[in-house]
């Protein structure tokens, strides 16, 4: 636009110069009037042209002004745009800052989120653990409640049984008094006791079916006892009790296992046949005594006696076969009637486990304990009548007429007089005594020691005559391994650590037989039935084996 203007302007200047040239010419050649008039005309023309040109100049100047204003306006607009741009730029920066800030915040939040997630995971695993614990606690609690319920039930039963017994007794007294009035003469002691015992027995048999199978024979044996007693004087009473009810003429050496069974839930520590030979008791670490009926060469579970709070260490039937005595790890000895699963008496007083409990009379019991005492108990008063301090851990004891024989960990066997309660003799053994057994004629004493040797002592000739029985492979498995003499006194039986039952012949001192393969762990005890027909061995892995020669 400017260029146009400038071009225009230069052309104008050229034109002006041209006009000046023409004018000067005309001035220099003034020729007449005509020339003057033409010159005047020219002058006029020129003036006119000058005016036009001046007008054009003005017009152009106006153009220039308009252009300049336009320019200014555009510059102003430009400035404004630039300002806006700067503003936008600021906003942009600001936004970018915010973006960064937000990103930062996001990062923080993410970290927090991760932390929370972690916490949640932890809480969840915690919850799982707690749930597990809850389950365990619940289990424990229910277990306790079960025990409480069982205890409550047995308490109720005991109470109602006691009530019944009381009432029955009252009835009987009532009935009996009438009888006495009728028959005016009476034989006081023996007559009044015998019908009572037998009638209570009958009552119990009706109540407790489990015991009923055994009772007729028991009843017969009691009757036998009373029959015998009638003929004798009072002094011979004790002898009668100790005499075996069924006398064994000859024991038969077992050759094969008739039955193998997992009798308890834990290891079995003790086994014993009753004097009628048809009842077997086993006692285990699982705190119960189980009664088994032995019939036709097999054992049938009849009853379970509970009440001990720890494992059973030793079992014995009373001479009449009506009660059972057991020693327990819970520092007590317990007495049950065979028809009642709840103990009739608990003899407490020992300060460590009781290792042996034996009847020394109808109403007297002797116990030996790891607390190095031997205690004598009166069953009628349920009280300890005598405590004997011994130098060593008592592992087993047996009773003979007027004497108690105890075996100890200091490799000694001690003989005590029950009347004076003093040690009348000490016999040496080859090692820790684990068990004692006395033959049914009370002449021979068998001791089993940790040196893997059975020792048979003739009690009539103290300490002079002594036989040792050993065998290849026979190893005494524990501190309480129990060996026995056969009821006829001709054989010895003991179980070894390798699960084999060894039987020796007493007459020639040789090993009679080995009964292998039925036990897989150390045999803890054996028992020989009084009929001589059966041997039962029990071991630490819950197994009981019935052996016989059939």
């Amino acid at each position, binding site marked *: 636009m400017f260029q146009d203007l400038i071009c225009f302007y230069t052309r104008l200047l050229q034109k002006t110069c041209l006009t000046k040239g023409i004018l000067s010419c005309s001035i220099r050649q003034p020729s007449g009037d005509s020339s003057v008039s033409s010159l005047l005309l020219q002058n006029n023309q020129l003036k006119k042209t000058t005016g036009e040109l001046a007008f054009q100049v003005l017009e152009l100047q106006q153009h220039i002004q308009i252009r300049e204003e336009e320019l200014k306006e555009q510059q102003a607009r430009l400035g404004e745009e630039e300002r806006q741009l700067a503003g936008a730029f600021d906003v942009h920066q600001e936004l970018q800052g915010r973006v960064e800030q937000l990103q930062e915040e996001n990062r923080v939040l993410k970290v927090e989120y991760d932390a929370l997630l972690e916490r949640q995971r932890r809480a969840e695993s915690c919850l799982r653990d707690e749930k597990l614990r809850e389950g365990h606690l*619940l289990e424990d*609690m229910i277990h306790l*409640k*079960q025990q*409480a*319920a069982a205890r409550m*039930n047995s308490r*109720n039963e005991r109470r109602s049984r006691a009530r019944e017994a009381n009432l029955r007794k009252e009835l009987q007294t009532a009935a009996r008094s009438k009888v006495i009035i009728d028959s005016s003469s009476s034989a006081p002691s023996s007559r009044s006791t015998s019908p009572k015992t037998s009638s209570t027995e009958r009552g119990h048999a009706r109540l407790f079916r489990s015991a009923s199978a055994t009772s007729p024979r028991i009843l017969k044996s009691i009757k036998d006892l009373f029959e015998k007693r009638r003929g004798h004087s009072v002094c011979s009473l004790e002898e009668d009790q100790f005499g075996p009810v069924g006398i064994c003429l000859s024991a038969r050496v077992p050759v094969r296992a008739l039955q193998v069974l997992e009798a308890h839930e834990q290891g079995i520590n003790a086994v014993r046949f009753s004097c009628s030979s048809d009842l077997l008791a086993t006692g285990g670490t699982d705190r119960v005594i189980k009664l088994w009926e032995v019939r036709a060469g097999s054992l049938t579970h009849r009853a379970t006696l509970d009440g001990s709070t720890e494992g059973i260490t030793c079992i014995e039937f009373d001479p009449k076969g009506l009660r059972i005595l057991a020693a327990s790890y819970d520092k007590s000895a317990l007495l049950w009637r065979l028809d009642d699963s709840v*103990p009739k008496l*608990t003899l407490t007083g020992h300060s460590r486990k009781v290792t042996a409990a034996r009847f020394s009379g109808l109403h007297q019991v002797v116990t030996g304990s790891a607390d190095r005492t031997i205690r004598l108990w009166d069953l009628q008063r349920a009280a300890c009548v005598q405590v004997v301090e011994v130098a060593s851990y008592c592992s087993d004891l047996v009773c003979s007429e007027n004497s108690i024989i105890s075996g100890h960990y200091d490799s000694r066997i001690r003989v005590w007089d029950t009347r004076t309660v003093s040690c009348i003799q000490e016999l040496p053994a080859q090692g820790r005594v684990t068990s004692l057994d006395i033959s049914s004629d009370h002449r021979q004493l068998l001791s089993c020691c940790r040196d893997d040797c059975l020792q048979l002592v003739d009690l009539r000739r103290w300490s002079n005559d002594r036989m040792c029985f050993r065998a290849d492979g026979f190893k005494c498995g524990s501190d309480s391994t129990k060996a026995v003499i056969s009821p006829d006194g001709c054989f010895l039986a003991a179980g070894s650590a390798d699960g084999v039952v060894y039987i020796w012949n007493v007459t020639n001192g040789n090993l009679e037989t080995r009964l292998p393969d039925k036990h897989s762990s150390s045999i803890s005890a054996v028992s020989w039935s009084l009929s001589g027909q059966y041997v039962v061995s029990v071991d630490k892995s819950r197994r009981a084996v019935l052996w016989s020669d059939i």
Partner: protein
Amino acid sequence: MAERGSTGEFSGSLTSSTLPPPRTRIFKIIVIGDSGVGKTCLTYRFCAGKFPEKTEATIGVDFRERLVEIDGENIKIQLWDTAGQERFRKSMVQHYYRNVHAVVFVYDVTNAASFRSLPAWIEECKQHALGTEVPRILVGNKCDLQDSIQVGTDVAQQFADAHSMPLFETSAKNPNSQGDGSCGNSDHVEAIFMTVAHKLKSQKPLVLSQPPGGSPGTINLSRGRDDSGDGGRGWGCSSC
């Protein structure tokens, strides 16, 4: 001496922990029903005389005892408050039913489901070979909540009749709110359990009912009369 040892273990008893003289008879009564119907509250109400402020789900069983005198004889009522939730009771059931003298079925009148599951409870009872001479009663609990009753008295009465059980509707929380007043101002919960105790007392134990020198035949006769005659309906008093 062994007997003395076990008394210390007894929990939940509100009576003294010493053994009463052996003459005291014990009636073992189990209370069963769905979870949350108020078995614990009912037994607590009877033994402690008040409504427990806060109870939690019973685990296994809780024992509650109360010594009452009936016709001059001291009788101990031993309530077995059983767990309603299956997982808290499943291994306990055989203990519940051992030598039980009476069974109390409880449902919640504001919860129809608890009423509908009664046949299952009765079936469980049957499976444990309870003799027909064992009295059973049906108790509808929570009847103080008049506005939300879901089980009508007539329906419940029909059910009770069908199973030859007397029906009681009560509330362990507010036992005196009973409008129709079959037991006047006395505590209704107490009346229910005392009714059971009276029934048990009048029902002589079989062994003891035998007169001196009587033949066993008499036992069967008396038992037969008990079963067939009233079938349990005659002795209870339904309050509704």
